[in-house]
């Protein structure tokens, strides 16, 4: 454990730097634009209101709330301070709910949907990819093009197709939402049952999407490893096939973990859009509602939370990678 200290410290420092950059971008990008967000909001709210004094009052009120009447660096400090307090202001579209209240109720739906789905898709994809590389014949001619085709269906496309097929045509799954309309969230059996039935379609649509890409990547990696010298050497020594496949699988998996860490942002982005199709009560639908209603504080907070989620997952994957990769282990114990 002691040996890992350097590796983990490095990863943690890296995480903190990226975090600061991400937060800064989240702060600065909207403010870099020529249009003043406060005046845009005021314009929308005060549409049709001819009273200049009232419009000015609305403007001042929001300028105060966002702190846009202060110099940039003070705004930034205020932004950081509020962020750590979990205070993202008040939502425009769902007034008087606070943004942090909306997000804290949406975030668990997204986490509970996407993490298991992406993980299951990743595992299934890797097993299939490794099998394909090992079997080779037959797979490449037929199954590979099919897999490439399936992996190219956009996440929202798969969501719509599954929704129409299973919920509307076959009527074996609910059409929309995270639970039935007549339920109130609580820990009773009917509610949990309702949540599980509503969970199926979004879950499987994400799983199917992620299987394809992972399987293709794993197949390439495994073929590369199967042709490596150590495999040939092991074969000459008469090592059992099963054991060789084990080694190959482990070695081919390492780049796959890095690949997952690098692509998790894109995957979550796609899955968030798929949430909209199912009206799943997660961050994706929240974001959609916020964009539709031009709810600026909510958009800003949602993007920030999604970024933080992706960063944390990437950090976790880096830590797991450190435990699995023998090279990291060796490097730590050498020094």
């Amino acid at each position, binding site marked *: 454990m002691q040996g890992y200290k350097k590796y983990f410290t490095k990863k943690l420092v890296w995480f903190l730097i990226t975090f600061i950059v991400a937060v800064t971008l989240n702060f600065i990008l909207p403010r870099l634009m020529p249009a003043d967000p406060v005046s845009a909001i005021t314009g929308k709210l005060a549409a049709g209101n001819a009273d200049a004094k009232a419009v000015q009052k609305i403007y001042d009120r929001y300028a105060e709330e966002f702190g846009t009447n202060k110099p940039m660096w003070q705004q930034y400090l205020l932004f950081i301070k509020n962020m750590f307090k979990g205070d993202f202001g008040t939502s425009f579209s769902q007034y008087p709910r606070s943004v942090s209240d909306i997000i804290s109720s949406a975030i668990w739906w997204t986490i509970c949907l996407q993490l298991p789905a992406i993980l299951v898709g990743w595992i299934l994809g890797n097993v299939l990819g490794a099998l394909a590389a090992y079997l080779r014949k037959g797979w490449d001619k037929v199954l590979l093009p099919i897999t490439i085709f399936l992996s190219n269906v956009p996440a929202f496309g798969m969501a719509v197709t599954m*929704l129409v097929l299973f919920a509307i045509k076959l009527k074996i799954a609910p059409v929309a939402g995270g639970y039935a309309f007549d339920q109130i969230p609580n820990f009773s059996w009917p509610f949990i049952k309702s949540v599980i039935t509503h969970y199926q379609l979004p879950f499987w649509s994400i799983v199917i999407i992620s299987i394809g890409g992972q399987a293709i990547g794993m197949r*390439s990696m495994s*073929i590369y490893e199967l042709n490596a010298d150590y495999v040939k050497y092991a074969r000459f020594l008469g090592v059992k096939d099963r054991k060789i496949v084990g080694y190959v699988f482990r070695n081919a998996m390492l780049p796959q973990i890095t690949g997952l860490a690098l692509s998790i942002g894109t995957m979550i982005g796609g899955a968030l859009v798929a949430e909209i199709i199912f009206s799943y009560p997660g961050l994706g639908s929240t974001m959609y509602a916020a964009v539709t209603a031009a709810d600026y504080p909510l*958009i800003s907070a949602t993007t920030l939370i999604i970024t933080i989620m*992706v960063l944390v997952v990437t950090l976790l994957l880096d830590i797991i990678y450190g435990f699995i990769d023998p090279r990291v282990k060796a490097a730590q114990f050498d020094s």
Partner: protein
Amino acid sequence: MKNTLKQLMHSSKFVLGAGIFVLILLTMLIYPLINPGNPLEMIGVGTFAKPGTYFSLYDAMDTKTETLKIADAEENRLTSIISMEDRVSMIEFLDKIGVDVSGVTMDDVDTILALWKANFDESAKPKGITNAKWRNYKTLNNRLSRIGKEERIVYDLDPETGEESKLKMIDGTDYVNIKEVVNTKTLPLGTDNFGRDVLKELVSACGTSILIGLVAGVVATFIGLLFGLLAGYLGGIADDIIMFVTNVFTVIPSFVLLILISYSIGQEQRGATVVAIVIGLTSWTWTARSVRSQVISLRNRDHVNLSKLSGHSLVRIVLTDILPYIASYVVMAFILQVSSGILSEAQLSLLGLGPKTTTTPTLGLMMNWAMLYAAHTNGYWWAYFPVILTITLISFSLNLMNTGMDQVFNPTLRD
């Protein structure tokens, strides 16, 4: 170059992918010639007309008729007029007044109708039926009584006197050749929520989306290539700085940056080109990483060192000694950028952050409109399914080309 192309042509995956893509491009170029006009023209007043050929009923009345005796014409007419719901309520009524309906199946319209005609008496309301139900039955009977009449009469109404004059008799066996009807319109994919021809719109949207993908791909590849070359070739502090930036932007989801920038630009400034450039600006990191690692492996090759010793300039070394070696990787990365650019546009549009447009549709916008008008829950498959299929096919063909190239340039992956 010629040799590379020849090799590529031997890869079945590359050929299939390129074939599909060229087909899509050809459709995009040729279809507007066959069916010219504004793709966003609203030809339908209603929403979501089904796919098929429409002919003008107005003109059909003036078209020469032929008398055709077709055996099951009557039968077809019956089944289409009496809906399943009608049949259920008819059987319900017959059962209530004590007619034996145990042997009657729902498909047997003739028998149901015959039993109804024999047993329904408008003047005598049976006991045990509410007034409301009885009224419904009477309306149904009214409608049913019209069935079986040999002909229908078309009247002309004089707008000034209000007088009706008989214009034409239409017989049950009158047929019109659809080719002789003056005005017909074929809508292979129906119309969308605004009453626009979906196929025409789709072809135009496909073109715009591919253009968006190309612009995004060019921007991303240019930035990625520049950063990758600089970082890989210069090394040292330049490498550190560039890789720091690249790593940070790899981890921060480009999807989020895309949303933030698109939202901040505002609805008014967000044209298709701007969206394309923004997508390019947020997706260059992959190219930069792979170009850098390639350049590092090339940097100390003999021919590069020779160039350096000969005193060639940095630009010349990069252009003549490094770029040709990584060209295949850059092309492959570019293809993937195009495909992901098209997808990014679609996702942005679904969120409501797509290009603002009143003149050109994009695939994402078409999807967005279909979802906004609940085409998927109402069964209007033609409004969204062709869009999904088009996005998938474009992305599939590009990725297939990429896989094929990968196998050609990377011998360990070959079969």
